[in-house]
């Protein structure tokens, strides 16, 4: 091929460029719209500070374009391009990490301490705990987690705190929701889709009246929901005062074998007594703990009056 011919070929824009650019721009717009719809508060907070989420997402994008450029140069010179940070980027990273250690408080993983406490205080056979066992467990686990957890809170207690747990199906979060609308990504759908969806809301009602009204908090509540046997709780009643206390009350679900724990939200009544199981957990909650059906779990109330503790794996 002559140099002149090469020049003309190289000057011609690729036919692939325009449609690909259009697709990418649409993708970005869709993601931005999804963000703005879901997260009104942070968007407003940013606006108050004179910032725009779109600009923020654009800000970091120079690195990839720069990498592409560096890559093109390297390929042109016959060298192998590497997607790892360049020495300059590495230096920035290293410097930042030193700075971060001062400002980011690393969370201590409570799992080993929880496991140690439970091996000491939890009975080997799965049964209801004595008051003395409960007191010891409440105290040691509250210390391990750094927030108060209790088998009894505000005069409320479950029929049992220690028992076997069932894997529940997903709850319908708002009227008319289908399984295909339930997941935030194909990845989630691939893992959790097989557990199906209950034909209606949990015993405490829908998480939101409509799809549009579904908040991030409501999504998390369903994602990490817990079923308790309300009908076996002494003195239980669906009277507003009692039911309102339990509705979406945070509980901590612990796998005593591993010490792993997840903060969940009470959203369903069950399982039936004749199943022999004491609690139920959402597919996501059970997956996070690595629990299977009929494994034992310990459940305690979380004392979180200011709503500071996030739902999900601890």
């Amino acid at each position, binding site marked *: 091929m002559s140099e002149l011919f090469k020049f003309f070929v*190289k000057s011609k*824009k*690729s*036919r*692939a*460029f325009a449609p*690909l*650019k259009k*697709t*990418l721009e649409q*993708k*970005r717009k869709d*993601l*931005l719209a999804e*963000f703005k719809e*879901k*997260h009104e*508060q*942070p968007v407003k*907070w940013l606006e108050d500070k004179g910032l725009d*989420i779109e600009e*923020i*997402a*654009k*800000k*970091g*994008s*120079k*690195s*990839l*374009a720069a*990498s*592409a*450029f560096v*890559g*093109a140069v390297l390929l042109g010179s016959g060298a192998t*391009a*590497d*997607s790892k*940070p360049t020495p300059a*980027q590495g230096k*920035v*990273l290293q410097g*930042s*990490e030193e*700075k*971060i250690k001062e*400002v*980011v408080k*690393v*969370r201590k*993983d409570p799992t080993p301490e929880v496991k140690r406490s439970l091996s000491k205080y939890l009975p080997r056979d799965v049964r209801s705990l004595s008051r003395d066992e409960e007191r010891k467990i409440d105290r040691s686990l509250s210390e391990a987690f750094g927030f108060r957890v209790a088998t009894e809170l505000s005069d409320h207690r479950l029929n049992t705190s220690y028992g076997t747990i069932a894997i529940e199906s997903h709850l319908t979060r708002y009227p008319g929701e289908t399984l295909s609308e339930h997941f935030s*990504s194909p*990845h989630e759908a691939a893992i959790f889709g097989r557990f199906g969806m209950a034909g209606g809301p949990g015993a405490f009602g829908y998480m939101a009246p409509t799809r549009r009204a579904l908040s*991030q908090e409501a999504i998390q509540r369903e994602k990490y929901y817990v079923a308790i046997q309300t009908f076996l709780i002494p003195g239980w009643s669906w009277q507003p005062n009692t039911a309102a206390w339990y509705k979406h009350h945070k509980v901590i679900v612990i796998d005593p074998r591993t010490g792993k724990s997840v903060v969940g939200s009470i959203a369903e009544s069950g399982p039936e007594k004749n199943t022999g199981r004491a609690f139920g957990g959402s597919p996501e909650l059970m997956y*996070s703990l690595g629990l299977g059906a009929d494994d034992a779990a310990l459940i305690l109330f979380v004392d979180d009056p200011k709503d500071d503790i*996030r739902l*999900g*794996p*601890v």
Partner: protein
Amino acid sequence: MFDIKFLNIEKIREELLLLELLEEEQVELFGDIAQAFNQKMINVIFDELIEEERKQFLEKFQSGNIGEVIEFIRVYPGLEEKIQGEAQNFEDEMILEIKKVAVQNL
């Protein structure tokens, strides 16, 4: 920002190269991919955080300090794994889009 750590740039570049794009076109498209990827990752991270943490995260992100952002992700329980899964989905989706365009241009 996120692309340095979480996105397999080489894999996407290989696909783009098959489209015989000019260097400037590659760079422009990589910029678009990065913007979409950053937005996607912000969405994913926001789904995991509570309100106060979201503000903390945005402050770190908008400061442009990648080290702080990565450290935030690293220390937050389960976040890095979640991002890696979503980054893989994004990568697969991008490659599929590039392949679609390639087929259209045959």
